[in-house]
């Protein structure tokens, strides 16, 4: 009893004591009828669980990938950036807004920044701060009229087009409009290659269809103002 190894052997012997085990013959004798019925029942039970599992998984998957499968339009909405006179003509301005899709725990991440360029009285460009390379925040340099990115040194001209560095394209631009004397943008998603921010070519600022004030004038004339 004092030798622990001995104890193990005793235990092992106990566990395999033939008195407690069915002999192979007994097992074989019990087999035919029982296994066929029980193994059928077992397979049935496994199948049933597979079915329940599938039914269980559907809503779980829906919960998990729900946000991923929504349309852009479900997230984007018009957000006011400020009244027109906050943006002096000929300047590029830093602006902030609160992201329209908020959850209670967003905290300060709900605040988003963007760059507003007022080309002349009537035309604007609104750029995302997120570099079109990998999303670092670009900064505007008034004197050299460039946006510079701190991460890998991407540079953009004042109209958002690519100047140099790793980015492959110009800055992401928000769709914008002038509404009730205020500048609004269509926002709600992180601008990346995968959403519509990417498909929008930097606008030709002076093209009449991109002139928000002209659109506004048309709206006024028609007496409608749709969102």
């Amino acid at each position, binding site marked *: 009893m004092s030798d622990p190894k001995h104890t193990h052997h005793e235990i092992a012997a106990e566990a395999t004591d033939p008195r407690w085990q069915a002999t192979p013959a007994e097992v074989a004798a019990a087999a035919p009828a029982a296994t066929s019925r029980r193994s059928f029942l077992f397979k049935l039970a496994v199948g049933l669980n597979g079915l329940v599992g599938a039914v269980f998984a559907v809503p779980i998957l829906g919960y998990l990938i729900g946000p991923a499968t929504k349309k852009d339009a479900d997230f984007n909405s018009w957000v006011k950036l400020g009244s027109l006179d906050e943006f002096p003509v000929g300047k590029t301005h830093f602006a902030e807004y609160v992201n329209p899709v908020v959850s*209670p725990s967003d905290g300060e991440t709900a605040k988003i920044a963007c760059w507003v360029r007022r080309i002349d009285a009537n035309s604007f460009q609104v750029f995302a701060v997120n570099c079109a390379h990998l999303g670092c925040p670009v900064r505007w340099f008034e004197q050299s009229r460039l946006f*510079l990115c701190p991460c890998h040194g991407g540079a953009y001209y004042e109209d958002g087009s690519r100047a140099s560095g790793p980015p492959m394209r110009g800055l992401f631009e928000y769709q914008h409009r002038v509404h009730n004397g205020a500048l609004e943008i269509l926002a709600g998603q992180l601008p990346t290659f995968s*959403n519509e921010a990417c498909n929008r070519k930097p606008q030709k600022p002076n093209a009449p269809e991109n002139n928000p004030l002209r659109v506004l004038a048309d709206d006024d004339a028609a007496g409608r103002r749709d969102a």
Partner: protein
Amino acid sequence: MKNPVELGKKLRAWIDLRTGLVQQAEEMADHPTPSSAASWWYVFGSGAMVLLGLQVVTGILLAMVYSPSASNAWASLQFINHNLPLGWYLRALHGWGSDFMIAIVLIHLVQVFLFGAYKFPRELTWVVGVFLLLLTLAMAFTGQVMRFDTDAYWGIGIGASITSSVPLVGKPLVRLLLGGPIIGGATLSHFFALHVFVIPGALLGLVGLHLLMVLRLGINEWPMPGRIVRRADYRQNYAALTRKTGVAFAPNAAWKDAVFAAAMILAVMACAWFFGPFGPSGQPDPTIIQTAPHPDFFFLWIYAVLAFLPPQLEIPFLLAAPALIVLPLLLLPFLAGEGEKHWSRRPVAILVVTLVAVTLGIFTNLGLHTPWSPVMDAWSSAAIPARYVKDRTPLERRGALVFQDKQCRDCHSIGGIGGRRGPALDDIATRMTVDQMVRQVLQGGGNMPAYGKALSPAETTALTAYLRTLNGNHLAPAVNPAAGIEPVNGTHPVAQ
């Protein structure tokens, strides 16, 4: 009262009768190890496991106070750092523990690779090990997000940008990663669930499997040149070797593992105590853009690679790279499952390790210095050294002001201060003529934007007049060799 030793033995027998665990543990400790494998080179696997344990313990302790909510996480980190007695030390232990763990896992991988331990029959052990490495890196990345500060915020942005370039499913993938359309509350809680439940669960499970296989197949014998691994007879040879030279794992090899583990934990504690916790840096406020986001040490090389890739190559590279790095690792034991184990007979293996180590080292070093990033405030903070304005004409000094004002300094250094994105301009006049400077400034080219719209003619004149004075240690200025040669028949001789 009975003798306590007797009592202990009884208790052990009592537990063993019900669980069988005591016997199993003893068998594990006794399992025969080729005496050559009871080496200091074999301590890294167990070292990584000990560090995993440290991470689990410190992680649980931190989770008791940390608030995984985007609105409170940063404040709760400040609270742990400053208000909770020794909270900073716990954060430091967890942070340094993570760096140590990645380092030890990498060393373990290199050691196993050089010792040929991935060969038959340990292929699956290696494959599981590759997944353990990936999970460890995933822990490091998600852990960086737990430190919810500016770097974390923009770091997730970088992750999302990379993900978004996946064709077809980029958009849903980004939203899955962020837990929504944009970085916010759900993003942090998603990452928290990954960092605290999902990845550690997988990690612990796979570590168990890894260990089980090590016990079942035995510790890799010390490789010998000429001792060839063959599927046909390796197992017999290994059995013969262990029969001949085998020693019980404990204490013969285990004491080295234990000493190494203790030394390592001491090192982690020392780093934590003397260097303190990592961050958090600024608040995760996306409107504070005066920041230069930086990943943690073990991801710096990726950061550097991303800065150097030519734009056209970037997306193909990002999509192909994970497969190109991971697939060879996974396939290795199946492609080279037999043959020589000893490093002296495997020159390619040595070359590969050297090449990868040097490459990673160079890129990491570049990532520490980021020469490609403009120094965003050099134009307003880095003065032009006095000797660079001494004895200049008013026009040239005006040019020095233009040079400063137009933020040229953000990318170009003079006198050793300023950005390093573009070349240093201390001796630019010896390399470029005025005409070339004007062209380069106005039209850009190479990696330089064009300043045609940002400079008036007068400013350009002043600027180039100043640059013309930057001729290093009074070296001869650059001249146009063709200047002064008469055109022949209206064409320039050089152009022919």
